[in-house]
């Protein structure tokens, strides 16, 4: 009896709860939708910096990643004083989110319509998702108006294209330019000791490398030589661009950007055979597939004789643990085109709900042109958070990377300016200017789909299956562990097809086509 009476009450309660839940959601969306477009025009533009007294003080809320260093607030107070003297009347509220949770927190804050002004981001964090969801403010008009110098820089570099979603500029990429095309290198001291001598620039192809590695193996039969499979080298040879999307990619010379699975490409078979050969000849470490230790560490500590790296590390100081170590580096396939590193690796973005995008942009424009401000921002207060040794900014006495009170703070990368960066132990003077010049060579090009975000919502299951198959069957092939390469690849290709590869490709291709169409 009692129960029959209860039912209407229960129903009512349920309905009420649903109503509340929905109300909360729609309320949120309403809040998000409010356009902040008029804000930029309302405030004083950059040109009127002289009229600082008329401008009221505002606090800008910034989010970065990592750990908040002890002197952060003090440094940013100094920054505030400095920019105030230059006519930008702002204070800063600096917050940090641990990198491991960065993405989740950003997405929740954006979805619930929180207000903040600027945040650090990157294509390896939440940037692509946030941009796709429209959480960042469109800066098409505001950028040239309030940050003319920065806008000019972007124009020279042509990097804004990557940060454009549906015709709207939503991110401010770092102004570093670099290309991570492959250099192969080995320990010159050991090779020459064994009488294996190569002239500079004489090693360019996989055949050259293959021959060298076999000579090296003969000279050092018991050393760990290499943990680098051949695949990436073949990718360079054939100008294949890996999309970073579940082993799918496209050929750079394909104007239509047709997305294809890597395992079906002719070079995949070639590369796997070569890797297998290296595996059988004990050139690749037996544990290469499982080795969790950083390859950079092993290289530095002399535990590897052969490595594959980029222009950056071919020219930076490798920091060998023993000063007698020497390295020799060769650019692989120097006549092949290769895509530049995405400028979205480190991005600053203005939140859609920011009330003072104009001030933020003016601040960023000052960072672009003002060396003193740049030093303050990157290194902090001289004598307190860093000391100058010649041109080099060093930790004050007793501090290291982990105990520093400001330097090396997380998210600083987005503010890096090649023109202002101080040399350090690793990077000599003008290192980054040279790096940018290298990336500007005609063989180094921007990816046609830089900034593309491929949503996985419709193909979740297929992708999970593909990833699992890759772990199970693909990886052993790529590391040369399988017995019969040709058979294994045929089997792998077949299984991937059956697991719904077509659906993944169709869905991804559609998104790529839409992206390219929107860019035209």
């Amino acid at each position, binding site marked *: 009896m*009692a129960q029959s009476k209860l039912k209407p*009450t229960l129903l009512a309660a349920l309905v009420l709860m649903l109503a509340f839940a929905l109300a909360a959601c729609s*309320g949120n969306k309403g809040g998000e939708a409010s356009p902040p477009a008029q804000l930029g025009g309302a405030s004083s533009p950059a040109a009127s910096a002289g009229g600082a007294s008329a401008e009221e003080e505002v606090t800008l809320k910034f989010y970065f990643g*990592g750990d908040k260093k002890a002197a952060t607030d003090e440094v940013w107070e100094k920054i505030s004083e400095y920019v105030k003297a230059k006519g930008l009347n702002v204070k800063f509220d600096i917050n940090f989110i641990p990198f491991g949770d960065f993405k989740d927190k950003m997405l929740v804050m954006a979805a*619930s319509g929180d207000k903040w002004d600027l945040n650090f981001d990157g294509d390896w964090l939440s940037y692509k998702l946030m941009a796709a969801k429209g959480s960042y403010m469109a800066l098409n008009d505001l950028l040239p108006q309030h940050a003319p110098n920065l806008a000019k820089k972007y124009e020279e570099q042509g990097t804004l294209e990557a940060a454009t979603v549906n015709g709207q500029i939503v991110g401010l990429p770092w102004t570093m330019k670099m290309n991570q095309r492959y250099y192969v290198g080995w320990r010159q001291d050991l090779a020459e000791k064994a009488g294996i001598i190569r002239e500079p620039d004489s090693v360019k192809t996989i055949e050259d490398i293959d021959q060298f590695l076999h000579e090296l193996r003969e000279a050092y039969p018991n050393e760990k030589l290499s943990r680098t499979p051949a695949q990436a080298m073949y990718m360079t040879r054939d100008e294949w661009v890996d999309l970073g999307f579940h082993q799918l990619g496209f050929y750079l010379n394909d104007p239509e950007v047709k997305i294809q699975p890597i395992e079906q490409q002719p070079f995949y078979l070639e590369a796997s055979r070569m890797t297998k050969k290296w595996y059988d000849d004990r050139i690749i470490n037996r544990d290469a597939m499982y080795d969790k230790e950083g390859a*950079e560490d092993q290289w530095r500590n002399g535990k590897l004789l052969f490595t594959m790296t980029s222009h950056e590390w071919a020219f930076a100081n490798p920091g060998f643990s023993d000063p007698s170590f020497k390295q020799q580096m060769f650019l692989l396939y120097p006549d092949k085109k290769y895509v530049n590193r995405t400028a979205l690796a480190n991005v600053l973005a203005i939140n859609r709900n920011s009330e003072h995008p104009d001030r933020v942009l003016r601040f960023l424009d000052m960072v672009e042109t003002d060396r003193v401000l740049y030093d303050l921002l990157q290194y902090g207060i001289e004598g307190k958070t860093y000391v100058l040794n010649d041109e080099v900014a060093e930790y004050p006495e007793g501090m290291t990377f982990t105990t520093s009170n400001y330097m090396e703070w997380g998210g600083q990368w987005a503010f890096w300016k090649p023109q202002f960066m101080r040399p350090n132990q690793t990077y000599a003077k003008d290192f980054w200017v040279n790096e940018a010049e290298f990336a500007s060579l005609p063989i180094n090009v921007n990816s046609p789909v830089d900034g593309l975000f491929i949503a996985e919502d419709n193909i979740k299951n297929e992708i999970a299956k593909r990833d699992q198959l890759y772990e199970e069957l693909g990886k052993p092939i790529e590391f040369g562990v399988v017995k019969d390469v040709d058979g294994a690849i045929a089997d792998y290709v077949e299984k991937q097809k059956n697991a719904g590869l077509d659906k993944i490709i169709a869905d991804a291709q559609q998104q790529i086509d839409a992206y390219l169409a929107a860019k035209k």
Partner: protein
Amino acid sequence: MPSRKISLGQSIIVVLVSLFSLSCLFPFVMVIAGSVSSESDIVQHGYSIIPRSVSFDSYRILLLGSNRIVDAYVVSAIVTVVGTVLSLLVTSMGAYAMARRSFRYRNVLSIYAIITILFSGGLVPWYIICVRYLELKDTMWAMILPPLANAFNMFLIRNFMQAMPDDLHESAKIDGAGEFRIYAQLIVPLAKPVLATIGLFVSLSYWNDWFLGLMFIDKQELQPLQLLLRTLVSNIEFLRTSNNAMDIQRIASQLPSQSLKMALTVVTIGPIIFLYPFLQRYFVKGLMVGAVKG
């Protein structure tokens, strides 16, 4: 006195149990040894009971801004104590109402509570409620209020209370006690064993929580211990694995991430481990209460 003599079987059992108890200590010793080992030893030789070379680097990193860790300890302690007391109060009162047979809508209340176990509003609505409506951002309440009433715990207590005879209420009523007096002076003392158990659960979850801190606390001085430690470890892990932290990676590779984790474990289990001995007698009592009732 034949009973004094220990038979062979008994001594074997004693030895076995002692060995077992000692083996329970093994992981602890391992953690402590790991926390003072140098990183390269761990990477090369794995964890060992006796550190090959002693290094306090990881503790140095943990305690870098020594104020920060003390602040975080205080925050965590306050949150745990206040949270546990309030949570026990709220859950037990809720459970009491649900357990009272004379309360007509007790089933409605139960179902209402069950719904919160089965369905959740999702992260974003939850965040909006806490930040926009309750304005919990950057307050200590943000870490105390959200997990205050836990339906599962409430049911545990309710079931315990339901097992108490109704006559208790009646006799108390006859003696002139009101509902609150019955709850506070009669039922709560009788429910001590279950409250101790739940109290332990709740205080552990308050102590171990970092998620609320992550979501709602931007101010560094209000961050709880677990969040601080998590931040340290997660950032180091991140810097080691991400190829975006290029410049830093070189330095990061020397960071003691393995021994740091161990040091962190030592730091966090410190205070909470003392909770167990104090609450243990209630567990035993709880077992016996159940046994006698059959």
